[in-house]
């Protein structure tokens, strides 16, 4: 059986971990198979749980989150016959599949959507904890926005520096209000539980918002412009489906293979104008073709668009 | 001596009154027992108090006096026994019930809210209606009446913490009167009072008695018993051992009843043979934290082998004088010990350096200063001297075994009961706590012993012992500076007496050539310095 370990945020974080969980559930439902999962409490448990699973013969073992890299490096070597999949990080081992996402590409599209939706030239971003991964989202978003409105302004705020920043919807709401009063019309939330407060406040304040990781359009129908979906669910689903014969190596999930994207559904149909749609499609094509390369913040920890 | 040990029990035989007879006793306790865990504080106690009388209760520390009265006041619940007030059996489940039965109590440690005003304290628990304003207004007028009637004047708007102890006590009495108490219990009321205040209190009590109120008075001072009570009960180890008419007994008899042996009520001492000057104080000033000048230029000296007694009404600078000498208050001026000047400020002015130079100090307040109540006796026995080399095992560790052995010895020597070094200080009675402090300070064999209120709240047996120890130290050629509000004590212990008033020395007297009256006047700042007497 396959197994999956969720990161400290917990499997119901309405975003990253939850997407992974959904992928596993979808697999279980479709194949009738069963799998095991566990949530972390502490950093020291990463290696412990990996081993627990490996020792009990679970295969493949998927872990949601870059923080598992260090633990996986040692464990993978100890269990050469077990296949592992790590999401959001590259671990160089013969029995590991590393799934990384080009979040910047999806965020770029979100930025374009924001640029078209905004009447003025200011949009904003609320991040959760201040870590490079979140800046990667912000940077792509800003680039996309500026590709449409080069003189425009993107306000970037982070909720905090501790893990509590993932679970403070009230503060998320306040940041959103502050951004609104600074002129922002569209806010992109990449902030876990905090993001729920952002989406809520945006709806209350008559702003548009953009969800993250999972499709969050339904959370505030008519107010969520779109969601920058990161198909972690697909990554998990794939890994589970391939089972013990999991293909190892690096697996980049970008626009080209539907790894990231912006969600279009009945909840936001009314918000998507034809021009916006056209611009998004065009950018998608250009990114896939390589004509446009969206800057990856993680590559040099800086962002030309800020 | 006509001891009616059976008095209590005889009273029990009186007809159980369903209809109260006119002259039913104000209070009748029958068979009261109370245990605190394994401690039997009261054993089958019966007592009858007639209306309109003053009834005294005496007994050693820990005999169970406070417990008995607290039961009557509903503070503790008795394990067994019944309470009859004016012939009616009453259930006193809490203080509210006691108050409605007309009982008021002034506890040994006042039950006042320090940062409330007098008025607020008085109405607390006895307010009329949900809003304070009418209650406060009513209390204000009533208080005025009461204080006029009984000479109990206090400023109704003063904060309790700003009042002297004597005034705080008045507030406690006013509280009881405001609640229309006609039975008033006072637990060691004079322990903290100056003689003048105590006299004032007794006048108030006389007044109350004349009004037909019944008063129960717990005290360690036989003089007070003789002076104002009509009957007196003696308690020992939780039992009521005797109840007698005050007129039929003598202090000596009472003391023997209490302690179970003959007690010396006056101090036996040889005349002093003063030697070299140990302590010299010149022009000492002390300003406290609030910026009030407490000591205003004092000159004093104490010789080896003499006891200098300082008397004065509390709050006239004696406390600060001791504190400066003991090293935990800063002052200005000159102090010399054995001819060498002492640092009054800076690094070497703390208690540790004072002790290192041979000054020992028995502080006025054993609970807050002299002892750590939660420390065991042996730990308390080196308190302040814990840096002394003889208590160190090596550079890092203290020699606990040696300290315990030393404590055991001192406790035996000073007759601390029980002589168990491992008991926490708080589980000793007041007198025994005081003996621990004394043992610690005297056994250091200091050149100068500072000693404040050595016998406050201590029973007669212990007082006798403590006084003997002080005299022994003097006879060993040490200098002793004694501060006490007890004129008796000052007069009988001191070789020389200085009176303090308003931060200054009003004058010095020899005990043989003065009396309570003169000292009392000087303490009030009235008498003038008589140049002929004190100069030497």
């Amino acid at each position, binding site marked *: 059986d396959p197994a999956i370990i969720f990161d400290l945020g917990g499997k119901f974080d309405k975003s990253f971990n939850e997407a992974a969980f959904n992928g596993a559930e979808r697999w279980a439902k479709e194949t009738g198979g069963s799998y095991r999962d566990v949530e972390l409490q502490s950093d020291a448990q990463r290696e412990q749980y990996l081993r627990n699973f490996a020792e009990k013969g679970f295969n493949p073992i998927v872990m949601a989150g870059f923080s598992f890299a260090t633990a996986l490096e040692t464990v993978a070597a100890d269990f050469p016959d077990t296949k592992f999949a790590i999401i959001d990080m590259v671990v160089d081992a013969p029995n590991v599949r590393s799934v990384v996402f080009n979040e910047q590409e999806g965020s770029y599209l979100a930025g374009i959507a924001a640029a078209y939706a905004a009447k003025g030239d200011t949009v904003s971003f609320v991040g959760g904890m201040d870590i490079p*991964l979140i800046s990667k989202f912000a940077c792509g978003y800003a680039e996309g926005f500026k590709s449409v409105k080069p003189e425009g302004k993107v306000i970037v705020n982070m909720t905090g520096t501790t893990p509590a920043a993932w679970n403070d919807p009230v503060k998320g709401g306040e940041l959103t209000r502050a951004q609104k009063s600074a002129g922002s019309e569209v806010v992109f939330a990449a902030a876990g539980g905090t993001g729920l407060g952002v989406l809520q406040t945006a709806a209350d304040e008559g702003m548009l918002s953009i969800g993250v990781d999972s499709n969050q359009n339904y959370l505030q129908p008519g107010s969520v412009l779109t969601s920058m979906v990161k198909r972690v669910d697909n990554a998990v689903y794939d890994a589970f489906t391939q089972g013990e014969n999991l293909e190892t190596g690096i697996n980049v999930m970008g626009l080209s293979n539907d790894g990231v994207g912006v969600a279009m559904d009945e909840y936001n149909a009314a918000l998507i104008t034809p021009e916006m749609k056209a611009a998004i499609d065009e950018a998608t094509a250009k990114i896939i073709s390589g004509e446009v390369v969206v800057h990856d913040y993680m590559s040099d920890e800086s962002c030309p668009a800020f | 001596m006509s001891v009616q040990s059976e008095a209590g029990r005889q009273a029990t035989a009186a007809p159980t009154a369903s209809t109260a007879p006119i002259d039913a006793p104000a209070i009748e306790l029958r068979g009261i027992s109370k245990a605190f865990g394994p401690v039997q504080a009261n054993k089958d106690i019966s007592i009858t108090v007639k209306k309109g009388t003053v009834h005294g209760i005496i007994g050693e520390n820990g005999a169970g006096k406070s417990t008995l009265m607290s039961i009557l006041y509903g503070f503790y619940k008795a394990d067994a026994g019944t309470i009859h007030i004016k012939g009616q059996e009453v259930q006193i489940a809490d203080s509210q019930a006691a108050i409605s039965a007309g009982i008021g109590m002034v506890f040994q440690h006042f039950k006042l809210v320090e940062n409330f005003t007098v008025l607020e304290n008085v109405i607390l628990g006895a307010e009329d209606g949900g809003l304070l304003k009418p209650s406060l207004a009513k209390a204000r007028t009533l208080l005025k009446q009461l204080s006029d009637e009984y000479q109990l004047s206090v400023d109704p708007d003063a904060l309790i913490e700003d009042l002297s102890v004597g005034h705080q006590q008045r507030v406690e009495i006013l509280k009881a009167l405001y609640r229309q108490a006609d039975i008033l219990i006072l637990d060691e009321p004079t322990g903290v009072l100056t003689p003048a205040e105590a006299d004032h209190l007794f006048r108030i009590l006389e007044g109350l008695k004349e009004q037909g109120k019944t008063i129960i008075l717990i005290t360690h001072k036989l003089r007070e018993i003789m002076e104002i009570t009509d009957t007196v009960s003696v308690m020992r180890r939780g039992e009521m051992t005797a109840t007698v008419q005050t007129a039929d007994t003598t202090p000596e008899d009472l003391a023997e009843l209490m302690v179970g042996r003959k007690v010396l009520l006056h101090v036996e001492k040889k005349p002093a043979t003063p030697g070299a000057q140990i302590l010299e104080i010149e022009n000492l000033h002390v300003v406290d934290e609030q910026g009030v000048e407490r000591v205003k230029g004092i000159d004093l000296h104490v010789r080896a082998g003499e006891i200098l007694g300082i008397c004065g009404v509390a709050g006239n600078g004696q406390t600060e004088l001791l504190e400066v000498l003991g090293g935990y208050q800063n002052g200005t001026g000159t102090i010399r010990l054995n001819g060498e000047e002492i640092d009054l400020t800076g690094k070497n002015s703390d208690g540790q350096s004072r002790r290192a130079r041979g000054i020992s100090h028995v502080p006025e307040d054993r609970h807050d200063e002299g002892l750590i109540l939660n420390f065991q006796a042996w730990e308390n026995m080196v308190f302040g001297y814990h840096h002394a080399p003889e208590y160190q095992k090596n550079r*890092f560790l203290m020699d606990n075994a040696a300290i315990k052995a030393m404590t055991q010895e001192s406790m035996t020597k000073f007759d601390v009961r029980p002589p168990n070094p491992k008991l926490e200080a708080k589980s000793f009675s007041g007198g025994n706590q005081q003996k621990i402090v004394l043992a610690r300070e005297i056994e250091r064999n200091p050149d100068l012993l500072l000693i404040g209120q050595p016998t406050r709240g201590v029973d007669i047996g212990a007082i006798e012992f403590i006084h003997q120890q002080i005299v022994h130290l003097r006879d060993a050629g040490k200098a002793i500076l004694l501060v006490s509000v007890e004129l008796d004590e000052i007069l009988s212990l001191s070789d020389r007496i200085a009176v303090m008033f308003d931060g200054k020395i009003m004058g010095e007297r020899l005990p043989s050539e003065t009396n309570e009256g003169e000292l009392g006047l000087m303490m009030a700042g009235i008498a003038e310095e008589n140049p002929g007497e004190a100069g030497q």
Partner: protein
Amino acid sequence: MNKMPKWADAVLIPLISILLAFLLSGLVIMAIGKDPVMAIKTMVQGAFGNSNNIGYTLYYTTNFIFTGLSVAVAYHARLFNIGSEGQAALGGLGVALVCLYVPWPHWAIALPAAMIGGAVFGAAWAFIPAYLQAKRGSHIVITTIMFNFIGSALIGYILLNYLKVPGSMSTESARFGAGAHLPTFHEMLAPFGIEFNKNAPVNVSFLIALLAAVGFYFLIWRTRLGYEIRAYGQSETAAKYAGINPVRIVVIAMLISGALSGLMAINNVMGEAERLIDNAVEGAGFIGIAVALMGRNHPIGIVLAALLFGFLYQGGGELSFWESIPRELVVVIQALVIMFTGALDNMVRAPLEKLFIALNKKKEA
């Protein structure tokens, strides 16, 4: 004269309290539709079942011993140090700096240096609140809470801007050199022919923690400083009378407290992670409060309480691992244990006391 024999006070009451806590926890487990007997089995098995599990239990225990001792030292001086969390975090920074910037040849040299680094940084983080309390009367409870927040912001900033490995996703420092690797129980016990799981994170720091507990005992009950700390804690006025300088005691007690918290980093940062991770303390500072209070501020009590919490942490983790019980259930069990052993112990004590008094009376009669 005593109401109760010592053993009843020290052993019986905590035992009954823990039992009650587990009983109630069992009800909660039943309420969410699981089998409590199974759960307790899983927890015990998960915490002590094999050397791997024991290794994890002891690893957590080590953290809690350090923070528990830290809180207790301050408590003896009547200072309520809520700041262990932040002090331990800063200790982590100290340890990381020591380990990162010096190419240590051998752990035996690296460890003392790291201990100094952790202790100094932890103490430094306690110093300001201590100084403000002593000199300005600023309430130490607030200032230490504030310093927890400030500390986490500071560590985040330093990690992100100075220590992070460029190009890495995680907010964490580079891995320490091999010379800073602390021997785990596996490595320590192997020479004696004892097989201990090689993956368990428990390491030589555990022994250091026990030493710290012994040191704590001597400090508090055998030295002059400890005597003064306790005296000050019991009564400030009496301490002044005895010539004990309050400012000095407050500052020193807090420095020691901070240093003990900081020392925790040799376990989690140097011993386990071998690099500095963001939020490496993970609430151990707060658990330290419970450990100190439950351990009655005595080293033996603290070690036992730390072990109990280590058990709850590890056993609870296994419980959520194997039984798919939400990991927060462990927090509930912890809460109940703290409640019953810490705050509600009179509930157990009062009837027991009565029982013993009655028994004694019977014996006497």
